[in-house]
């Protein structure tokens, strides 16, 4: 029983870490992975989601609906930011970095002034279950499930809907899409808004586990970027999954062998090594392999 509990503990941590990375990166995978915008304010959109969730929850709205509100709210804020600011900086990596960094400061300081340094937290639902001597939170497993569901829905939206086809075409060649009748401005705003809505939902989900403050986002932005960049943009979704799996795997392993701190360092080290070997990310390697396999089977 004790061995089982120890093994379960590691698997539980692994799921927790994978879920954390995927959830934190699920909106950014659209905004940076597909659109190529370095959005330093992504964590602040998550923070907005966390605030909406907390306020709605304390107003008596059930947590799941509060989290959906968070998605809608962050999505709307994202679309407004896109139309007012972001759209002027497409294809300008450095400018978009500086501008979105500014936005992130503006949002977090603005929330600090308006709402103060912290607000009432939201309790974590579902309670615990015991295995052997240890107890495990059920909500962490819910986080994992939601993370998987979010990636699956992003994939389905971009693969199967007309909007998805138009969005992928617009990201690849906006001029050509426009010449085929697509209102590319709308597509950009909607795609950016969708990424922010995903961030808002993730923020709302994390709001139930963390302290909510104006600087909530800082916990997520760096890890979201590391995950998305390691995944690469050749195929943003398979990249996100493979990078979350490998980074969380290394983090969990080292975590248990050494300690939590070294686990973090090892994860960032792993991202560094992966990008040294595969500068365009893991997904570029996967796509290359697929093409090679297809060529071989065609012969």
């Amino acid at each position, binding site marked *: 029983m004790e061995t089982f509990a120890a093994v379960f503990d590691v698997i539980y941590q692994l799921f927790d870490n994978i879920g954390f990375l995927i959830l934190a990166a699920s909106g950014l995978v659209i905004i940076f992975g597909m659109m190529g915008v370095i959005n330093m304010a992504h964590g602040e959109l998550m923070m907005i989601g966390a605030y909406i969730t907390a306020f709605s929850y304390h107003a008596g709205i059930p947590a799941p609906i509060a989290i959906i509100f968070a998605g809608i709210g962050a999505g709307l804020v994202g679309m407004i930011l896109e139309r007012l600011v972001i759209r002027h900086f497409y294809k300008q990596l450095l400018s978009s970095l500086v501008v979105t960094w500014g936005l992130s400061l503006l949002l977090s300081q603005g929330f600090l002034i308006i709402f103060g340094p912290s607000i009432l937290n939201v309790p974590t639902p579902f309670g615990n279950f015991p295995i052997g001597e240890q107890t495990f939170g059920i909500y962490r497993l819910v986080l994992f499930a939601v993370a998987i569901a979010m990636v699956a829905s992003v994939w389905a939206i971009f693969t199967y809907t007309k909007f998805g086809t138009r969005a992928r075409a617009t990201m*690849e060649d906006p001029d050509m899409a*426009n010449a*085929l*009748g697509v*209102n590319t401005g709308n597509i950009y705003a909607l795609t950016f808004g969708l990424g922010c809505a995903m961030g808002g939902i993730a923020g709302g989900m994390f709001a139930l586990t963390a302290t909510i403050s104006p600087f909530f986002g800082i916990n997520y932005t760096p890890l979201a970027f590391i995950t998305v960049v390691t995944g690469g943009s050749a195929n943003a979704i398979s990249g996100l999954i493979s990078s979350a799996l490998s980074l969380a795997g290394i983090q969990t392993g080292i975590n248990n062998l050494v300690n939590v701190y070294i686990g973090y360092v090892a994860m960032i080290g792993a991202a560094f090594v992966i990008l040294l070997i595969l500068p365009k990310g893991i997904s570029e390697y996967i796509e290359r392999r697929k093409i090679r396999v297809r060529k071989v089977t065609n012969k």
Partner: protein
Amino acid sequence: MVLKVNHLSSGYGNVKIVNDVSLEVNTKEIIALIGRNGVGKTTLMKSLIGHIKSSSGKIYLHDIDITKLSPAKRAALGIGYVPQGRGIFTRLSVLDNLRMGENVGGNPRSTNFERVFQFFPILKERGSQKAGSLSGGEQQQLSIGRVLVGNPELILLDEPSEGVQPNIVQTIGEIIRRLRDEEGLTVLIVEQNLDLIGAVADHCVVMDKGSIVTQLATKDLNNPDVARKYLAI
């Protein structure tokens, strides 16, 4: 008259590349726009679809002034644009590329692609393949097939022979003629390939240094001196 260009000038920033061009294309005509490299043919095509703003002059489609309209609106009015380099979406499947043609005119509707497959049977075979994995000739056919989905009246074709093997160039030439003869389309084609020009063009308009300098009958290009003078050969 389908297209009328009046004293059009355009370029990048302060650099004027197209200079005071006037041009008329009549219904069901196939006009070849020829000239050496860098004389402004592609810039003129981009100005006609609206990727480059015109600094002065007017563009009319029938009697509608389209000079200030966005590319999407020009497409909705019946201009199909097949750019240099083909402009296919390499990461989308062949069918998804064709579906992009359905966006013309606002509300996307489902079309049956049989009409396109009738001209380009290879696209049916390749339907689910990533467009980036097609050969140059197949991509060119996809690019033309894609604008056909949107039912254009006028097609702007920018160097369809570029990077395409000779037997496919011949096929594309035959299809361009069929599009005019069977579907009543009007075509303005930028081309350097003498065989293709000879096979499709009713007459040729010659550009040099951003302006239109003369018009030629297609058969005049059989004269090597004329061809050498006006083309990059």
